């Protein structure tokens, strides 16, 4: 199972490329500008609902998005980020 990190906003092709190939049981961690995919309304809302999605809390706060995060998305701190990389078999970074 792979942890996919995405650091670009949904405007960029990173998230759509990731969603095309992501496998069952794998998860996405949104970081940096990637957290813009975690808010409502998100162009990827429907696809994200079927997946386990995490988002980096510091990057959400830095962008003032704390009260806009979609339900079902779990926020993590940097130690949570480390724990996720350890929990999944490998990490694939999309940028």
């Amino acid at each position, binding site marked *: 199972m792979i942890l996919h990190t995405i650091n670009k906003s949904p405007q960029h092709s990173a998230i759509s490329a990731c969603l095309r190939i992501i496998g069952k049981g794998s998860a996405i961690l949104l970081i940096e500008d990637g957290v813009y995919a975690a808010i409502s309304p998100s162009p990827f809302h429907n696809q994200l609902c079927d997946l386990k999605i995490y988002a980096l809390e510091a990057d959400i706060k830095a962008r003032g998005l704390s009260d806009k995060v979609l339900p079902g998305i779990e926020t993590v701190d*940097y130690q949570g*980020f*480390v724990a996720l*990389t*350890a929990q999944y078999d*490998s*990490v694939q*970074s*999309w*940028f």
Partner: protein
Amino acid sequence: MIFSLAIYGAPYASQAPDTAYQFANAVIASGHKIHRIFFYMDGVQNATKLASPPQDEADIPARWSRFILDHQIDAVVCIAAALRRGVINEEEANRYDKPSSNLAEGFTLSGLGQLVEAGIESDRLVTFGY
């Protein structure tokens, strides 16, 4: 668990060096080990000792140098990426007849093979793209 990090982004141009720095600290705080940090592409700019940002801003290159020395981490800068961007150690400065060098303490110039080796030797290789 043994981690290695690959950093592709330059300080002040990309958030990658900052995310990677916070992640690296969290790796240590979580009781894991860092085998190597590999600076590649524009990420080589993290290894300059001549950056002089304003005092109220984070000195990202100096912060890496301190972290690397404090935790005795192998920090490798891709030599091909570094030389073409003007990140150079004394030995290479002499070889190419340059007037000075700027590679900060703690960093080593080496080849891309070190990134491959880091992938083999570590349980996790985490890339921080630009």
